[in-house]
């Protein structure tokens, strides 16, 4: 019995909600390291890979799973039911990736609602041939009485911590290998940071960026350029080239992968601890480097930013102070 106790490994669960599967790939991309993880823990639930069902989780004792990694935003009724169950069974919940942390790309759905999304998908797309106006239903009864069901589609996309209590956040779309491994090791070794921590260094991307040295003494932006309009200098700060880069308002830890690929940051890691709203923070950073005090000039310059809400809140709309667009405002 004693021997058995000592060999008992911590139990781990993985789950996905409204997401693309990239966070699952991020686990598989641990490659050789995944073998170390499998050695050290007992994976009790990973629907994408292992044959365990919801009822298996229901049968487990509350708090019997050491940690649950949940990726994806919450958009369907069944996703909410599942994460509520996992919260009960897991001692720790880690929001894995941008979608569960901030809302992510599916969170852009909060510029719209169910009605407009369905209308586009099933009526107005030019290839759709739907003369009877059919729309997917939660319950469909076929002609001979056969009944088929679909989960409910919410009006609004939610972050994980808007639905259940979350202990830690693993940022990124998708999170890089080293941060995933560090998180797993910290949990295994019990070296846990304070609850609510984002498991990546608490400083801005600019602090780590290789292009930081290229910044002029006094940074000024005289015009805004879009990436397709110019040949992007692979060594110079994007903002100094006039290109919107979310670096000043974004947490570091990603390995500057997009910047090394010569494209500007879009903010998938979310803000640092000191910042409540990533978009507002970026706006104030931007205001400080626009090269004019003339209000009209500023207005003109800002007007050349073509999609401020969709750019400054690219990954964080559901977690922002805005949360979603007020639909009555566009009607």
């Amino acid at each position, binding site marked *: 019995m004693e021997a058995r106790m000592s060999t008992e490994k911590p139990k781990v669960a993985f789950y996905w909600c409204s997401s693309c599967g990239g966070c699952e*790939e991020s686990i598989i991309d641990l490659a050789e390291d995944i073998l170390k993880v499998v050695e050290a823990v007992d994976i009790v639930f990973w629907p994408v890979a292992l044959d365990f*069902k919801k009822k298996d989780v229901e049968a487990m004792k509350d708090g019997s799973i050491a940690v649950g990694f949940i990726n994806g935003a919450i958009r369907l009724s069944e996703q909410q039911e599942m994460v509520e169950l996992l919260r009960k069974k897991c001692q720790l919940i880690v929001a894995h990736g941008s979608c569960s942390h901030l809302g992510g790309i599916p969170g852009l759905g909060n510029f719209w609602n169910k009605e407009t999304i369905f209308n586009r998908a099933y009526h107005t797309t*030019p290839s759709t041939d739907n003369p009877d106006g059919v729309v997917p239903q939660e319950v469909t009864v076929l002609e001979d009485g056969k009944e088929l069901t679909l989960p409910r589609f919410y009006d609004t996309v939610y972050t994980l911590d808007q639905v259940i209590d979350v202990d830690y956040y693993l940022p990124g779309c998708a999170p890089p290998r080293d941060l995933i491994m560090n998180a797993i090791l910290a949990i295994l070794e019990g070296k846990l940071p304070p609850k609510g921590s984002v498991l990546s260094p608490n400083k801005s991307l600019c602090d780590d960026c290789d292009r930081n040295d290229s910044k002029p003494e006094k940074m000024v932006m005289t015009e805004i350029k879009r990436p397709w309009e110019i040949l992007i200098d692979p060594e110079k700060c994007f903002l100094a080239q006039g290109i919107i880069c979310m670096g000043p308002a974004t947490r570091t830890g990603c390995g500057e992968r997009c910047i090394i690929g010569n494209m500007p940051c879009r903010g998938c890691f979310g803000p640092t601890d000191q910042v409540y709203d990533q978009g507002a923070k970026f706006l104030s950073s931007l205001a400080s480097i626009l090269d004019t005090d003339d209000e009209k000039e500023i207005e003109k310059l800002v007007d050349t930013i*073509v999609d401020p809400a969709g750019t400054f809140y690219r990954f964080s709309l559901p977690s922002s102070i805005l949360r979603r667009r007020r639909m009555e405002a566009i009607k």
Partner: protein
Amino acid sequence: MSERITIDPITRLEGHGKIEIFLDDKGDVDRAILQIPELRGFEQFAVGRPVEEMPRITPRICGVCPTTHHMCSTKANDAVFNVKPTPTAEKIRRLIYNAFQFEDHTLHFFFLGGPDFVVGPTALAADRNILGVLGKVGLEVGGKVIRARREARDIISYLGGKVIHPICGIAGGVSKGLDEEHRVQFLETANFAVEFAQFALQIFDDVVLKNKEYVDIVVGNAYKIVTYYMGLVDKNNKIDFYDGDVRVVDPEGKEFCKFSPSEYLDHISEHVEPWSYIKFPFLKKVGWKGFTEGKESGIYRVAPLARLNAADGMATPLAQEHYERMYETLGGKPVHNTLAYHWARLIETLQAAEDMKALLEDKTITDPDIRNIPTDTPNEGVGIVEAPRGTLIHHYKTDSRGIMEEANLIVATVHNAAAINMSIEKAAKTFIKGGNVSEGLLNMAEMAFRPYDPCHACGTHCLPGDMPLELKIYDYNGELVEKLKK
């Protein structure tokens, strides 16, 4: 004794695909339906975004095949801005794309489709996975599989910034070039890839083709449906994953139509059913006739076998040899046997590897000229590429500033949605008779949709690569009568 069988890939609460099989009074299959309970609304929330951001937004449709969406979206940007990539940029894009096609196909064969054959369709479920494959072909092969996937993904990481959600595509080119040092390094990868793809075809030959029992299953009626086929072809009607015209052949293999990406709306429509969030595309000029086979039905198929059927041949010499051998073995073109998708996938893997090699042997791929700056006013454009799982269409309309006004996306697996439904139904009708439901049905049903490598069916891209299935049989009153689980 009317019954209903539910096959849930994961759990009822998962939400990426489930199969319902309805039995009639005699216990024979009346109807089988695959439902997709998932929708995220990309076409709507694209509206208002700058079009150049679409290659950075749409990869989040799928984290398994983000490179495909990134490339398709980049090509749609070329079309919106009416600009062509520089010759170097096109080479770099093709290199990334072939590396992706190679690693994705490899993953599917060894982790997913392979187990059914390599380990055997009647083997125990517990052995029908990547571990079983390794048990049969040896651990050394496992090392090669991991190396092939990792090295091909390294090419995408280097050029694309990130392998999960690349960022390099931009109208008129790419954001980053290739230097000589990396060309040499990646050429080594490409040489290994060519060797590896041939080796995979050898395994298929030894294990499947030399086994009459397996060949009989491949050519049997249970896994055969007669449809049209679609795929991109180059100017010689050879398979091209990255660019070209869309060609459709009829069930007899005759060219039915050939069109450029901008004409797709003249040829493809999508049907809506109330019981699935997925739509069902069909050939507009034939029409939607329900879930039926044959020349009268507008249902067509995409992905590896469909591409081989729709083309006159492969674009590279080694792959062409295997192409000819496949059609000789299976009795000429077109092949309607769904399980032949696995063979076609390996032949495509070889073309992707040969293409990578040819691109990297050409030193001009390191030229610095990687961007054409657009000068036209943005307007409207369609991008089409061949995803591993079939034809992928991104269609954008913008205002004069290049802000998205409309998006229409037809994703690879969607084209096959109706055919997957029919394939499952046909297999179920063959194997379930008189209410006799055996555990073997589970694998037989799996084998009907696995060849399509459907991206929505959760378990298809995972370790250990064996799709978990649960089968429930309910009586007429909804009482659970029996439960099978593998």
